[in-house]
């Protein structure tokens, strides 16, 4: 197993505010890793540091030589009104050594192949706004795959998508991982996504726990990560996280509607 990414004592700060502190993290080829944590826990900052989009304030990040990374941003951050078609988005990453920007026939064929694989066949000439939510997200995965990465990095891939889309996405990512692609993603969706992954990293500024869901999804780790009491049940061999106090809220609300 070759090491793709190695972070040693990694810290990141915006001004005087430390967002990520003393993180040690290694990702080897073929892994599928999820980073979980509450909003503001430094998940996106850690991803950006790993992608070398921001410089760490302390520590090191090593990429294996010639590592190809592809990044899928959160769908909420995309400007859907930007005047580009699906094909134009997918070929965007291929910009090295080009004299004339026209999409070549070879690129068009390769794009069509990737789109077909992601269930977007025949939509190449559509404007990105004219797609459904699930299709929109897959366009960005298509762009990432077109870049032929060794490591696919996704930021909150299931935020703002419906249950069906999440399900399809999980199948797609599992299939890619089985095909040998390494995947790193962030999520705050513990039950819908994180519990299904082989390896989880619980982050709250620093790494609280790192391991299989059965090992890290425990009440004490989650309480440290989220700063709120949580209960973990085992259902069909898989951990299911329950928020403490949810039953209390529903009791209060039902009492109000009854009165």
């Amino acid at each position, binding site marked *: 197993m070759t090491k793709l990414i190695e972070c040693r004592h990694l810290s990141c700060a915006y001004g005087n505010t430390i967002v990520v502190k003393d993180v040690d993290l290694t990702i080897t080829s073929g892994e599928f890793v999820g980073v979980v944590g509450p909003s503001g826990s430094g998940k996106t900052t850690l991803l950006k540091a790993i992608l070398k989009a921001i410089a760490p304030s302390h520590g090191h990040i090593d990429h294996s030589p010639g590592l190809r990374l592809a990044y899928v941003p959160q769908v909420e951050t995309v400007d859907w009104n930007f005047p580009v078609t699906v094909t134009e988005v997918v070929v*965007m990453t291929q910009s090295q050594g080009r004299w004339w920007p026209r999409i070549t026939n070879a690129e068009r064929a390769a794009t069509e192949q990737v789109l077909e694989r992601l269930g977007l066949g025949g939509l190449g000439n559509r404007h990105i706004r004219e797609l459904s939510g699930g299709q929109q997200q897959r366009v960005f995965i298509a762009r990432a795959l077109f*870049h032929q990465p060794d490591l696919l990095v996704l930021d909150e891939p299931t935020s703002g998508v419906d249950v069906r889309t999440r399900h399809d996405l999980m199948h797609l990512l599992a299939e890619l991982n089985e095909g040998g692609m390494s995947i790193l993603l962030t999520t705050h969706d513990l039950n819908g996504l994180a519990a299904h992954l082989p390896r989880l990293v619980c982050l709250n500024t620093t790494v609280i726990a790192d391991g299989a869901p059965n090992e890290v999804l425990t009440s004490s780790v989650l309480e440290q990560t989220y700063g709120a009491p949580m209960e973990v049940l085992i259902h069909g061999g898989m951990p299911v996280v329950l928020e403490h106090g949810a039953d209390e809220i529903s009791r209060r609300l039902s009492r109000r509607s009854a009165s």
Partner: protein
Amino acid sequence: MILLGLDLFEPYHFAFFRNGVLVATIAGALCGVLGVFVVLRGMSYIGHGLSHAVFGGAAASAVMGLNYFVGAGVWGVWSGVLIGRIARRRIIGADAAIGVVTTASFALGLALLNRYGQAKKSIEAVLFGSVLGVKTSDIIAVTVVTVVVVIIVVMAYRKMVFATFDPDVAEVTGVQVQWVEALLMVMLSLTILVTMRVIGTLLISALLVIPASVSRMTTNSIARMLWVSPIVGAASGFIGMNMAYHLDTSVSATIILVAAAMFAVVYGATGVRGRVRISALHHV
């Protein structure tokens, strides 16, 4: 050719008009190309501010007896890069900082011309443009900048589109976003520099915004916008210049009014679809 009692070819007997038409048409096309990136990046205000900053440089170079292109060029490019850096940091008050820098430069230009210049004439020429002042050197300058800009936009097209659409991902994928942005600011400064003599400081940002907005209403593809926008810009320059002669109106005002009329026609013709498309263009 006689139309409605007007001899349409009459002005072409004058060398100044032939030069003016040529510069106005090329300038329209040039502003059309860069305008696409200006409106999609929400940089309309930056274009507006930059033209004011260049005015300061133009005045200072006039007073110091420097060549216009050298003096205003250095000043303009420097302000462009500076504004780009301020805007990039996205600190609170970036707009205010840009406003202060550019209007101060503009005010300095006015004061310098008041104090040392043949004030009134040259101030009006710089503010509103002057077709009489167009020299061969202007034609050469605008042509050279246009050729350079077209070559850069063609060669760096995908990088520029990527950096505009999705700067974070572009950076990760190996596009040097900071350089692309600096390059854009330099091209914008040079464009303002070489078109300012005809269009003038006050109306140049309109020529950056209107043709690009018209093109946005007609298509959902940035590649097609980059064809449509320069055509609209060049047509505005050409038609505006001719109309200004026959109507005896200000050249820059007429060019902008022609562009605005095209905007109104396309706005009406594309209906709701066009309105939806331009509603997303922001003005920063």
